[in-house]
């Protein structure tokens, strides 16, 4: 019997104007966002390749490796370029469309799923037949779910076509991430669909359930994620970078002043005692003093470095704690669960910067070793750029032979495998799944208790 009800539910949706409009809008937006993403991606790839080539061209003009100041170009991620059209549509990515539009559509499809049938008298007509409440609600949920699934699948399949036709070469792992993103989108939309049925079975008027769901949606999508960040900021304040730098400058200045005072004091003592010494002893004493000053200077630098490391470690620990609290609170909302899961899936999560910093450190060491090996000396500084920029390189050098850049180590994007992304997103997707289970049980129980008179 549930199949008959599911079939009716699906057909009822498919034949409604509401479905036609909602499905068209969501499909159009998803496809458009994918198309914009592809356009942007291609522009950024070209920009990246151009940047790398410029850097290599400039480097190949040099005669000494020490003169090369390479720029490590970051590969394309989620940022948008300064292209005016893309800037105008920068919010329109598939995650945004799913997060905002699809959840609203799920609510629009189900806010009157149960109480609407009561209002129109069809609920009593249905239950005047040999239909159990369990069969009915299962059929209702399956039918509504299929109705929401249809535009999502169509949109993302068109997205696949666009990716193929516009020549975006995605790796197998990227296709896998795309597939899981689609699954996450379905899971997220399902969550709001179940909430819609749940609230609809709790109330007896569709206008009331619509208002409740609208408030729930605003809280889940707009308020909870931002409130969580604000609350975490209040509960676990983290100093700003300016405050840290000021603190470090103050410590550095104090340490240096104290050190210099100690050195001056020691110098005065030695000068006083040295005035009565024989010249050869005095010279020896000054050499010792020089060594002591150098040792003191190194000690001061060491202290400042260690203090700086401690302060930054504290800062990162506090920041991690704050992020953990903010994300934990935000995860009360399925919108945050979905957003965090998709960020981890695509590798644009908050750890992205750290991954790049680590990769940069590694590259810096690799490059310094290479440059030293080639006779260019150490202390190479590398800057990273994600946007347009001119790689800098000195045009002069001690020898006239130009360097060979063909063997120069290349910066590699930090590894972010399919496995890593899935494992990273697993917890948030699990939470989303759990939310679905609760919403399903809620809808089911609420309907079993629903008074259909």
């Amino acid at each position, binding site marked *: 019997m549930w199949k008959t*009800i599911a079939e009716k539910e699906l057909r009822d949706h498919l*034949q409604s104007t509401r479905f036609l409009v909602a499905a068209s809008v969501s499909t159009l937006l998803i496809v458009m966002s994918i198309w914009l993403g592809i356009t942007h991606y291609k522009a950024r790839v070209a920009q990246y390749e151009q940047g790398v080539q410029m850097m290599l061209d400039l480097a190949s003009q040099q005669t000494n490796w020490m003169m090369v100041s390479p720029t490590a170009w970051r590969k394309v991620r989620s940022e948008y370029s300064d292209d005016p059209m893309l800037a105008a549509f920068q919010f329109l990515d598939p995650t945004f469309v799913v997060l905002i539009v699809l959840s609203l559509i799920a609510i629009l499809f189900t806010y009157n799923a149960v109480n609407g049938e009561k*209002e*129109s008298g069809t609920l*009593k*007509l249905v239950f005047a*037949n040999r239909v*159990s409440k369990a069969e009915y609600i299962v059929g209702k949920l399956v039918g509504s779910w299929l109705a929401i699934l249809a535009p999502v699948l169509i949109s993302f399949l068109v997205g696949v076509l666009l990716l193929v036709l516009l020549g975006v070469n995605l790796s197998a792992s990227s296709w896998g991430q795309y597939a899981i993103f689609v699954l996450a989108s379905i899971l997220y939309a399902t969550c709001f669909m179940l909430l819609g049925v749940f609230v609809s079975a709790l109330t007896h008027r569709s206008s009331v359930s619509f208002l409740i769901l609208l408030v729930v949606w605003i809280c889940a999508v707009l308020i909870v994620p931002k409130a969580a960040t604000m609350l975490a900021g209040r509960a676990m304040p983290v100093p700003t970078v300016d405050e840290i730098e000021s603190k470090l400058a103050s410590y550095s200045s104090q340490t240096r002043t104290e050190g210099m005072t100690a050195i001056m004091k020691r110098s005065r003592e030695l000068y006083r005692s040295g005035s009565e010494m024989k010249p050869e002893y005095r010279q020896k004493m000054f050499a010792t003093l020089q060594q002591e000053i150098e040792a003191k200077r190194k000690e001061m630098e060491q202290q400042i470095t260690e203090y700086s490391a401690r302060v930054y470690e504290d800062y990162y620990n506090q920041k991690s704690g704050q992020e953990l609290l903010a994300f934990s609170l935000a995860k009360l909302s399925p919108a945050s669960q979905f957003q965090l899961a998709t960020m981890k899936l695509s590798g644009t999560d908050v750890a992205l910067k750290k991954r790049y910093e680590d990769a940069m450190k590694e590259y810096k060491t690799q490059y310094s070793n290479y440059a030293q090996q080639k006779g260019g000396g150490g202390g190479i500084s590398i800057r990273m750029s994600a946007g347009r920029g001119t790689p800098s390189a000195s045009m002069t050098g001690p020898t006239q032979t130009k360097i060979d850049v063909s063997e120069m180590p290349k910066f590699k994007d930090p590894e972010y495998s399919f496995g890593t992304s899935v494992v990273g997103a697993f917890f948030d997707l699990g939470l989303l799944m759990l939310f679905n289970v609760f919403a399903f049980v809620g809808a089911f129980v609420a309907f079993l208790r629903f008074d259909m008179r």
Partner: protein
Amino acid sequence: MDQTNILEAQMLTKVYEDGLCALDHVSFSVKAGEIFCLLGDNGAGKTTTINLFLGFLNPTEGVAIINGIDVAKDPLAAKQHVAYLSDVVMLYPNFTARQNLDFFARLGGRQNLKRDDYYNVLRQVGLQEKAFEQRLKGFSKGMRQKVGLAIAIVKEAPAIILDEPTSGLDPKAANEFLAILHQLRAQGRAILISTHDIFRAKEISDTVGIMSEGKLLAMKTRAELEHENLEKLYLDYIQGKVAA
């Protein structure tokens, strides 16, 4: 005609949790080929009686029986033998008349009906041919009522329960509707109607039950009503001028 009771209320009582007695020891029966009208004001207990027959409520006392099955004990089995038409017949506005009929026929256990079978039922209730494949969103109340009646007919249940079936219908549509009920009675269906339309009740009923404040005050057969002014009788009963 078969004289077994298809619908039977035995001392049916419903007291809600807040203490309100919606139905007080009501007993009546409807035989095959008989139309029984429950006549009463709003709050008289007509809809409560119907809800008890459809298993939407459990009785506090007494039993509601459909074709020999106690509704409270086995509601799903009992519902197999009854068709229902509510006072609000919006049905599914995105579906055509035939699609609505198809859905409810399948719920009623009629799985293998063909398009022509549905058309025949829709013809039987007097719906215009051109409306068969039109969506219900453009239908008048009378047209929707006909589709609702087609839904009740297509189930081929021995009992039909109609809740205020003529309310909101224009006189022509109401007359057409009653004509169809006559046909169903002739086919041997037991029909229970709740209404506050005294004139239609007198016109169509084999028995009229007058209800007020949860009590069945009187039952009058067609023969008994032939020379009675039902309106006066009804008012006398509910104003307590006549002892129940």
